[in-house]
């Protein structure tokens, strides 16, 4: 048996450091990628994974450190350079041009000259498809492909110029379980042919299931590693605990949860969504006869894989998207024709997942962002003229109450960390008597401590009578705080069922469409 120390690593990162204004994304990273091994890189969002990938793939230049390929020191100056050296990356968000065909996408960037080597490309595509054991039609338009197939094309593209290292960034986030299984098969095949595969994820179980070796990243630094031997010999619980300690630095309960209060049977219905449908551009409706009814103070969890209509449902409830059919009724009043502002006036709140996009206005101060949805309203504006004092006071109060870390309420909100931005958004939506709140992935990218705080606050609000729709991709969170849960699959919502232990299996089946919704 060959010892790990005798194999030349395919890629070695030594002392890699990269800083951006205000944050050190990677600090003195040492990483070794061995051939024939799946290396899981585990870390929360914001731990520095994207930057590390950027450095390996040639998109980003490190400030300090050394990169060695097959033992030789190299300098990767561009994505093209990385690809030519055999380092291929499949990013979390598709980097294919949706309007071009598969073959054209694969030809992109390879040859910037006049002639397109279409025959040669077809041959190479065939070669790689065989390697992966998948079927790909070169003339189909990428935009029409399913996500799993698109990912396969991405993998082919990543390995196009040379098969040395394959980096997969959160590859299962958009896949169905069947798609994920297929991916695992492909990865195993590649590894058996001697490639080094790097598998980046924030999901602990995935990292342990799929990796031969696990490295844990936290706040830009490597905080620990689990070797193949340890994975083989120690029990799963042991390893999980160790990894959790690495991430959080203290013993944290692997199973945490705030139990939801019972909703009285006699409480009346306060919010109803009836047969809401929204047509889409394609053949399938974006929302298909979605219906549910909630009592005051109830929390309904909406589970499902990203992209099955959850965001559109949130937008429909908030008023940012029009319904083609159906009704939304709040305390007996139909609101589906009301504008966003009118719904806000009636107590409808929407905590968006798009923090940097629609949730905040970056260059404006934290204080202004706090009153963003109240422009023109008293006491912040009187006869249309702004009253900075009132705004500042309000903002300071919210900052204190919600423990937002910011030097001052007048700094631009873009200088805040993602977690603090989310706190501001949350504070804003929950202030001034909400009646119905729609949350879309409110804990995305937050560390465990902040996540727990946010979940607790959501549960608290519900206890004081706020009806809640909680959209999330994390089943553990849903199970922790929701009264009932329904699953979105291809625009359809399953019948809500009460949350109870062990419900995850049932939900998983619904999420993948193996049971009809």
């Amino acid at each position, binding site marked *: 048996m060959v010892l790990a120390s005798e194999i030349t690593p395919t890629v070695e990162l030594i002392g890699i450091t990269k800083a*951006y204004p205000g944050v050190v994304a990677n600090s003195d990273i040492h990483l070794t990628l061995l051939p024939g091994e799946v290396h899981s890189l585990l870390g929360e969002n914001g731990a520095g994974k*994207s930057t590390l990938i950027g450095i390996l*793939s040639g*998109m*980003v230049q490190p400030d300090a450190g050394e990169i060695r390929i097959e033992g030789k020191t190299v300098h990767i100056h*561009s*994505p*093209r*350079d990385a*690809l*030519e050296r055999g380092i291929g*990356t499949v*990013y979390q968000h598709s*980097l*294919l*041009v*949706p*309007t*071009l065909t598969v073959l*054209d*996408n694969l*030809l*992109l*960037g*390879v*040859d*910037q*000259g*006049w*002639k*397109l080597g279409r025959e040669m490309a077809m041959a190479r595509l065939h070669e790689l498809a065989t390697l992966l054991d998948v079927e790909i039609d070169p003339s189909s338009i990428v935009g029409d492909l399913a996500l799993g197939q698109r990912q396969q094309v991405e993998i082919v*593209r990543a390995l196009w*110029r040379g098969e040395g290292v394959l980096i997969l960034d959160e590859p299962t986030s958009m896949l169905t379980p069947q798609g994920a299984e297929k991916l695992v098969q492909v990865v195993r095949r590649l590894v058996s042919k001697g490639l080094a595969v790097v598998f980046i994820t924030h999901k602990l179980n995935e990292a342990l299931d799929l990796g031969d070796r696990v490295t844990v990243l936290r706040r830009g630094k490597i905080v620990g590693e689990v070797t193949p031997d340890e994975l083989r010999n120690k029990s799963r619980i042991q390893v999980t605990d160790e990894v959790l300690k690495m991430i959080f630095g203290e013993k944290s309960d692997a199973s945490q949860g705030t139990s939801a209060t019972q909703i009285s049977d006699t409480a009346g219905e306060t919010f109803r969504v009836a047969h809401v449908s929204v047509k889409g551009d394609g053949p399938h409706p974006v929302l298909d006869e979605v219906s549910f009814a909630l009592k005051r103070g109830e929390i309904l969890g909406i589970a499902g894989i990203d992209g099955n209509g959850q965001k559109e449902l949130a937008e429909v409830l908030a008023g940012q998207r029009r319904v083609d059919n159906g009704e939304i009724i709040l305390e007996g009043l139909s609101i589906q024709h009301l504008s966003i502002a009118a719904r806000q006036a009636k107590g409808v709140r929407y905590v968006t997942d798009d923090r940097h996009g629609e949730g905040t206005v970056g260059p404006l101060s934290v204080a202004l962002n706090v009153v963003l949805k109240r422009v023109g309203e008293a006491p912040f504006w009187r006869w249309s003229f702004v009253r900075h004092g009132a705004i500042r006071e309000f903002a300071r109060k919210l900052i204190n109450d919600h423990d937002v870390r910011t030097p001052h309420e007048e700094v631009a909100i873009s200088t805040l960390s993602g977690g603090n931005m989310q706190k501001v958004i949350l504070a804003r939506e929950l202030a001034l008597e909400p009646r119905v709140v729609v949350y879309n992935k409110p804990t995305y990218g937050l560390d465990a401590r902040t996540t727990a705080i946010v979940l607790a606050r959501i549960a608290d609000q519900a206890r004081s009578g706020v009806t809640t729709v909680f959209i999330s991709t994390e089943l553990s969170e849903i199970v922790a705080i929701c009264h009932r849960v329904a699953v979105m699959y291809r625009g359809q919502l399953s019948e809500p069922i009460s949350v109870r232990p062990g419900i995850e299996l049932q939900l998983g089946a619904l999420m993948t469409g193996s049971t009809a919704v």
Partner: protein
Amino acid sequence: MNGLFSELFISSLVSGGVIAGIPLIYAGLGEAISERAGVLNVGLEGMMLGGAYGGFVGALHFQSTWFGLMCGGLTGTVISLLMVVLCVRLNSNQIVVGIAITLGAEGVTALLHGAIYGDSYPRVPTAHPYAIPLLSEIPIIGPGFFNHHVSAYLAVAVVFFVSWVLKSTGIGLSIKAAGDQPHALEAAGGGVHRTRTIAVLSTGLLAGLGGAFIVLVGAGLFVPFVTNGKGFIAIVLAMLVRGRVKWIIVASVLFGMSLSLTTALQLAGVDVPIDLVLMLPFVLIIVVLFAFGRRSYLPAALALPYDREQR
């Protein structure tokens, strides 16, 4: 016999339409390339004007229409370098720079012409038309379409060439990717900046040719602001054809005809207020916008600067 639908009217309409339309084909094609790559080039008018003046000077100096056209193309390309440096490389606001280029070109060409040729108003050598055998003998419309200087036929040829490039070459793919998903191009190892540079320089070349055509084949001399808004019209036409480059030919000739409608009407002895007729093509564009604008296709990354290290 005069009047609408008379021979005189139709032949003058066609002939005038082609002369007015060819510069639009050149400039519109150029703009379409830029826009496809994700760059909105509002400075087109300035590049055309630069080409018009450069072509004028070149033709006078070399006493040749073709040398004039080449100089015009070169001038347009040089002006587009400004766009390349400021917008593609330095990520400046494309609209502000476009307006700057237009105003600056208007000023400098008018100034130079006035200072150097203001007294003499020289004319350029005549651009000799070449009548395509057989086709130019078609009754009534034959000469209008097929008896022009070769650069007119060249415009059509270039359109087909560019269409082929976009569909079947590496650079064409890169241009499309730069406009639809620049990150994809960069990740694939192509260069977004490099691609957009090529696109913008081509626009400058084509716009310069178009401007030179106006002076050398159309008017026969240069006057300040000789392009008279054609650059802006070309921008609109490029947006309207929605990326399907071959349609530029039809759109430009049709628009050219509507521009030359007044002359044709006058010749035909039809009495309509000129201003209303001159208004017509622009009103038509507004109507088209209402009718087709919604479903129009513009590249997703249009006018957004590209920053490789964007977090």
